[in-house]
């Protein structure tokens, strides 16, 4: 036991003396959460639009007021004719142009039908789609207001309720994803690098020719990173609660336990990587290409798994992050207990045992 503690002490020396890695270790989670929370978002806010109003009457004015009153749009400019539409788009200032036809009010009253055209800059298709949806919604609302006193014979009213994230904040979606990525990165990459560093610098040779058992070396390598990863997880959860007002509906205790489980899964992957790579560089490449990319792309963090082609859906099953994200979303947003996520938990436990077993089998007690 004394040997083991001595070993862990040495690991902490390594970690705390490598200022650059330490900075990455603790700077990255904060930077990533901030980036995803503030900058990278699917929501639209204050999108600049232009108005081409051919009729300039009370109704169009009211609609324009409603639109500019919403926090989603700000009316940037009024243009006078169709030919300017192209030029304002080309300048890139506005993302959409609203065109009201001639005699909008007259037509609305006489014919019960008036037309508004929404032209969007679809170089960014997602934003264009969102803009058109939002504009439509505003127009629908206005229409309902106009029809308040009129009995319409048939009506289907949709009542949409956005469960678990009523304001559709994208940060709610990103926090579980970012947390998964960070834990994966810190745990898997850092451990694999720290084990291969011993190989590369030749110190592994001396460790092997010592009474330390391989399992002691490995656990000794892993323990400091469990500690660091837990700190990272706490930082991320605190940031998301206090800065992004993200609720944690479920039990914090369960969240902690599940996070530790995922950390151990990632660490076992890190150990596995270190057994198959001889240099720090290889370990880093394998961690980045083999873990980070699939974690970002195939875990359902950014792209929904259900809309992936079937082969990718199947592959996504072996990505530990996929299951952890389900667990995180369940606990944080839906407030579920273990009863609803036992399957995912079991999968993670199974994966961990598999990786550890494989690493032990592959771990070399000699140099060959």
């Amino acid at each position, binding site marked *: 036991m004394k*040997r083991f503690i*001595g070993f862990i002490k040495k690991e902490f*020396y390594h970690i705390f*003396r490598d200022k650059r890695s330490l900075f990455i270790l603790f700077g990255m989670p904060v930077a990533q959460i901030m980036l995803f929370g503030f900058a990278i978002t699917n929501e639209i806010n204050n999108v600049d639009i232009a108005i081409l109003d051919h009729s300039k009457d009370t109704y169009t004015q009211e609609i324009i007021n409603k639109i500019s009153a919403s926090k989603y749009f700000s009316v940037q400019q009024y243009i006078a004719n169709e030919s300017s539409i192209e030029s304002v788009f080309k300048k890139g200032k506005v993302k959409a142009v609203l065109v009201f036809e001639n005699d909008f009010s007259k037509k609305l009253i006489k014919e019960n039908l008036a037309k508004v055209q929404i032209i969007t800059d679809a170089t960014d298709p997602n934003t264009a789609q969102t803009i058109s949806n939002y504009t439509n919604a505003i127009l629908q609302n206005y229409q309902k207001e106009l029809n308040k006193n009129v009995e319409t014979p048939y009506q289907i009213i949709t009542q949409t309720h956005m469960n678990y994230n009523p304001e559709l904040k994208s940060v709610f979606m990103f926090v579980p994803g970012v947390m998964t990525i960070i834990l994966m990165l810190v745990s898997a990459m850092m451990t694999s690098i720290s084990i291969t560093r011993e190989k590369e*610098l030749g110190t592994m*040779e001396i460790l092997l020719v010592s*009474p330390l058992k391989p399992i002691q070396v490995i656990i000794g390598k892993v323990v400091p990173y469990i500690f660091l990863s837990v700190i990272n997880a706490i930082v991320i959860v605190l940031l998301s609660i206090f800065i992004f007002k993200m609720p944690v509906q479920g039990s914090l205790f369960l969240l902690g336990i599940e996070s530790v489980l995922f950390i151990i899964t990632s660490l076992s992957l890190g150990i596995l990587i270190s057994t198959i790579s001889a240099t720090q560089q290889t370990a880093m490449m394998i961690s980045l290409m083999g873990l980070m990319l699939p974690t970002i792309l195939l875990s359902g963090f950014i792209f929904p798994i259900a809309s992936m082609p079937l082969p990718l859906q199947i592959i996504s099953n072996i990505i530990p992050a996929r299951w952890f994200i389900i667990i995180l979303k369940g606990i944080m947003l839906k407030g579920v207990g273990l009863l609803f996520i036992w399957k995912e938990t079991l999968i993670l436990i199974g994966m961990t045992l598999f990786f550890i077993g494989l690493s032990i089998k592959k771990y070399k007690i000699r140099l060959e």
Partner: protein
Amino acid sequence: MGISVKHISKSYKKVNALKGISFEVKPGELFGLIGPDGAGKTTLFRILTTLLFADQGTASVSGYDVVKDYKSIRNSVGYMPGRFSLYQDLTVAENLEFFATIFGTTVKENYDLIKDIYIQIEPFKNRRAGKLSGGMKQKLALSCALIHKPKVLFLDEPTTGVDPVSRKEFWDMLKRLQQTGITILVSTPYMDEAALCDRIALIQDGKILQIDTPQGIVKHYPKKIFNVQADNMYELINLLKDYAHQYSVYPFGEFVHYSDKRADFNTADLQSYLTEKGLKDIAIETTKATIEDTFMELAK
């Protein structure tokens, strides 16, 4: 119960690193493996320290088999690899303490053993190991290899890249360590260090050329050897190599070591040959064969 190596062979993908090597090291002996780079010294060390499997043959270290009893060996030997293999970001004291801890001992307990060596680097004990000079690094590595009082000490080229003064100090330490009863197997490419061992094995291309005491080994040189000197060293070597009766010509410091094929070789003949070719200040005198001469001869 020192070290026993029997018919050890080892080959990597393309290279036959060791070709059926056998030798014995007696307990308490300072045994040197002398050979050029690529001779197979490091491979042999790794087999004896249980880091590699031999393809063929058996070996034992203080009575333990290197394959079966590898755990016992790992508990009782000290190993200093050829490359500096300590933690560069740990200080001198931390490195020493770490190795003491993982071997289940303390620096205090075995301080006597390393005192002579460690005292020289103690003034720098708070310096990171990576910032030490070459000689100091080796002293620290030796201290770390010794801290658990090993029965057998393996030193793979401990003085390569170390300045001459530190090299001498290092060997003085080895001699003192030997007094405490530790069996030492040391490898070196430097022939002058060979003379300091009890016995040496000359090794080349995975084969042992000769095993003997340093005094004994030079007797294997079959010819009389001469120091030849002249005003133009380069010309001298070329002329000697062109000389019909030459047996061997090796530059050796300020001299050229020369031996002749003929049993009735007369230095006057050579003198006149060289004068004829225009060399001046020629001096020829008999000398003793060195380990290097013997090695070159055996390696032919």
